[in-house]
């Protein structure tokens, strides 16, 4: 309807088309942010390279799909968190993964988590790698060992390790630290940590918002 008339639906004053458009765009932004449990759009501090994005999405499609949430108040999502290389020495490398507190505040439950890492091996060699899951204990700021895995790898390329409940719980709390401890010199130089397309990452399937939605309702 033309500006200055009366809105046929609500009887209020009509807006000119430009103001109407502004109002609708603002409504669209609010609606999306609200459904993603975000107060405002995120500012990206560490942009991800297109190569890493492409690699990760290819791997994501390879993961088994989970069951749909039975309760439609919850929302299921998949998160890919790229490793930030933490404190490292010649004998071990630490990988830190962060999961946004927006989601953890709204009630986030990790259903499944896998570590994806790339290995470049000399041909016909096998190497062993110890992977430790370190968690913050409630009483002190030091990281303590929650569990560890022994990996044996005999081929170059991407490898996936399904992480257990300790690692899932750490992701649900928002921060996971993994420590790679190569068993020998070959292994030490084989895990590819850097490079745009080969950054290790954790792919997690998460259920968000059950508690959050009920509280708001």
């Amino acid at each position, binding site marked *: 309807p033309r500006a200055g008339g009366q809105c046929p639906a609500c009887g209020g004053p009509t807006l000119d088309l430009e103001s109407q458009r502004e109002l609708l765009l603002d409504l669209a932004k609010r609606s999306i942010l609200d459904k993603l449990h975000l107060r405002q*759009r995120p500012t*990206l*501090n*560490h942009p991800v390279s297109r190569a890493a994005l492409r690699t990760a999405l290819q791997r*994501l499609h390879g993961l088994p799909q989970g069951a749909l949430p039975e309760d439609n108040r919850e929302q299921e999502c998949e*998160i*890919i968190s790229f490793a930030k290389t933490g404190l490292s020495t010649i004998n071990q490398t630490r990988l830190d993964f962060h999961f*946004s507190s927006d989601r953890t505040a709204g009630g986030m439950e990790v259903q499944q988590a896998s570590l994806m890492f790339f290995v470049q091996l000399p041909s016909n060699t096998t190497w062993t790698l110890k992977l430790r899951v370190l968690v913050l204990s409630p009483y002190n700021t030091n990281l303590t060992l929650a569990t560890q895995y022994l990996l044996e790898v005999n081929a170059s390329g991407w490898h996936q390790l399904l992480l257990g409940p300790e690692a899932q719980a750490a992701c649900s709390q928002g921060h996971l630290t993994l420590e790679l401890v190569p068993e020998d010199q070959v292994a030490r130089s084989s895990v590819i940590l850097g490079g745009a397309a080969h950054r290790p990452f954790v792919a997690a399937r998460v259920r968000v918002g059950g508690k959050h939605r009920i509280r708001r309702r």
Partner: protein
Amino acid sequence: GIDCQGGSRMCCRQEFFVDFREIGWHDWIIQPEGYAMNFCIGQCPLHIAGMPGIAASFHTAVLNLLKANTAAGTTGGGSCCVPTSRRPLSLLYYDRDSNIVKTDIPDMVVEACGCS
């Protein structure tokens, strides 16, 4: 459902596409390129109340005629133009830790409108 065209005043679905590049969100929303924030608009005179927004069945048509002929005597609230079918919006985006998140937001896109 009926899509709004020209000056139609009856209940219909108004398409409204939000281009994420236009609102400066294309840096953090990887896919899709925009969001069809369609909405329902228009009037629902009593004799088409309860119309599901699709070609009414014969039964509905008779019911509407009865309503129209006895509309004067009826009291009670009007009928509203509301979504009768919706689908989820699948999003792939970066969160503030630069994690990639893939999620389906249920009931975000209005597919059809009708009179309550």
